[in-house]
């Protein structure tokens, strides 16, 4: 008889479904109240004990006396059904979504650990998460990645491990310029002018932005090239301005400055945070770079110009060319 009962239990365990107790009957015996639930967590008492998940302990007393009825039953063990992990790749970002781990008979899910590896089977680099159902890895370099998800119980124990999901990140590189034509408007010797997309401004303002993103392993480099402002041979001189928002009004000066809003590094001579401005004419000059993969980032470009009292009249023009180089 016990073999039959244990076999039934084993079947239910392997089937992985939640079993609800009911009386078992036959013409030869009656098993009453076979299930002793442990309630909402790990519990013990003098009448039953849980050794570990998967163990079965029969509580109560088996008896044959006519003066009492021996009630034998089944102690339910906690059960967890692992999450199913699904990856999605967009650019250099891998987003993993998963189904919630299903638990019963005592387990509660307190959170998850997500693991990433570059080799199937790991070793995985694990990150502890809360009780969430999504996680993203950003700025991944090109390659194939392997992921698992571990489910944690109330005590931080791993109670289930998901399938291993695989995602391949391709090379990504994007670069854009927010405006292709800017103007200082009229320059004067009285004060600096700042280029804008309309007619310039006497107040310091960004003329346009650059947006860059790359998952290249050693980042990217942004360069510019071009000549200084020119009007039929008359030029506004390239300038190097340090720690000043105005430069030197009354002198011919043309320079630019860049403000990084992310991890990109701007050379000191162009660092807008320090109010440094510079312009290197007719060469490929580096104006920003990263040393590793970088998510989309905006860099604000500022342009300043001052004119000497006798700056020859005319319309001054130049065209700067920006280019990005990913360093794979």
């Amino acid at each position: 008889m016990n073999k039959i009962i244990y076999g039934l239990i084993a079947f239910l365990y392997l089937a992985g479904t939640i079993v609800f107790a009911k009386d078992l009957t036959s013409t030869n015996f009656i098993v009453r109240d076979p299930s002793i639930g442990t309630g909402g967590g790990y519990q013990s008492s003098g009448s039953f004990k849980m050794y570990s998940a998967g163990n079965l302990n029969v509580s109560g007393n088996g008896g044959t006396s006519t003066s009492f009825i021996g009630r034998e039953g089944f102690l339910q063990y906690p059960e967890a059904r692992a999450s199913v992990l699904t990856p999605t790749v967009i650019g250099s970002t891998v987003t993993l979504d998963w189904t919630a781990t299903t638990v019963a008979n005592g387990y509660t899910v307190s959170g998850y650990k997500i693991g990433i590896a570059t080799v199937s089977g790991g070793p995985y680099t694990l990150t502890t998460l809360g009780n969430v159902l999504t996680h993203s890895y950003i700025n991944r370099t090109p390659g194939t990645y392997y992921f698992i998800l571990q489910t944690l119980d109330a005590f931080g124990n791993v109670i289930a491990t998901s399938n291993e999901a695989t995602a391949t990140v391709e090379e990504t590189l994007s670069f854009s310029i927010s405006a292709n034509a800017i103007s200082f408007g009229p320059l004067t010797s009285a004060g600096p002018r700042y280029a804008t997309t309309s007619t310039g401004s006497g107040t310091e303002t960004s003329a346009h932005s650059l947006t860059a993103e790359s998952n290249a392993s050693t980042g990217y480099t942004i360069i510019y090239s071009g000549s200084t402002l020119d009007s039929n041979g008359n030029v506004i001189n390239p300038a190097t301005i340090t720690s000043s928002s105005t430069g030197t009004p009354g002198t011919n000066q043309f320079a630019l400055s860049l403000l990084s809003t992310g991890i990109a590094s701007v050379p000191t001579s162009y660092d807008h945070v320090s109010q440094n401005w510079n312009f290197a004419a007719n060469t490929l000059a580096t104006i920003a770079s990263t040393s590793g993969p970088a998510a989309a980032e905006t860099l604000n470009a500022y342009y300043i110009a001052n004119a000497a009292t006798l700056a020859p009249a005319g319309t001054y023009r130049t065209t700067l060319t920006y280019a990005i180089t990913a360093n794979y």
Partner: protein
Amino acid sequence: MMKSFVRILLAFGILFISMPTTALIANAASLSAMSDTMSNQTISATSSHAIRFTTPTGVTANGQTIVVTFQSGFDFTSKAIGTVSLTHGASTGTESTETLAASPSASAWGAVFSGTNNVILTLTAPTDGTGSAPLAAGDKVIVSYTSANSTNPSSPGNYTIALTANGDTGTITVPILTNSQVAISATVDQSLTFSVSNNSIGFGSLTTANSRFATSDSLGSSSEPTNAHTLAASTNAASGYSVAVSGATLTSGSNTITAIPGASAVALSPGTEQFGIRGAVASGSGTVAAPFNGSAGNYGFGTSPLSSQAFASNSTASASTSYNVNYAANIATLTEAGSYTTTLTYVATANF
């Protein structure tokens, strides 16, 4: 028979095991430190390329190649080998430059374009495997294209450049933008300033005894003053400015005091009717035109009545230049009595 077969099999087995491992494994690895620095990423623009990579294996034997394959869309039609270069070395800054030729030789790498629009460049190692210097394992390699006949794709997007170097492989992604340029403009407005310090001057009473000079208080003087008035001019016109003067000589009814004629300044001569002007640069830069450019005591007036005549000029943009202007008059013994007047007009013209 069976024993013989086993012996043969054993011999092949020993031979197989004793073969150098390198003869069994292809030397293929991933290129590293790959990049392509372009000068312009605008669609359809010409752009230079500086393609850099590090080869783990090296290219050191006759027949081994480096192949650069641009994605379809790039156009290197008519690209000359002379506009491509190959340098390499163990460290940046110490690269050796290789000679490129149509086919490899002991001293030159072969360089051949192929594919649609020449998107494939095959560089074949010299026949001695060395050239200028062995392209050794770990070398940093730079394949450069000038912008001549190097045209970007006409559609924006990301494009790849596939690289192989003796079996080592890698790809580089480059973006092509609709417009990667920023056009910048500024204006400097035209400026011209011109002023006359005094609009009314006088000689007082003329006499045959000595020359009289106009003064700003209209009383005149018998000695030459610093000036009767000044003119000040400035402009940012690239070709500077010119100042002209026009007007008649001193006149009283139908009587006149003869203006000093000629193209050059003339010394004053009391007792002779003379009316003239002399200018000099007081500050700044500029040039007083003849006949008004005489030294002290030498005056000119030019034609009479004076038509517009160059008085001063500056050939470049200049800050304010101040001119001292003096006027001298002499009369003859029989010069008719009367009050003689005239009005001279000065006009400045900027030459933008």
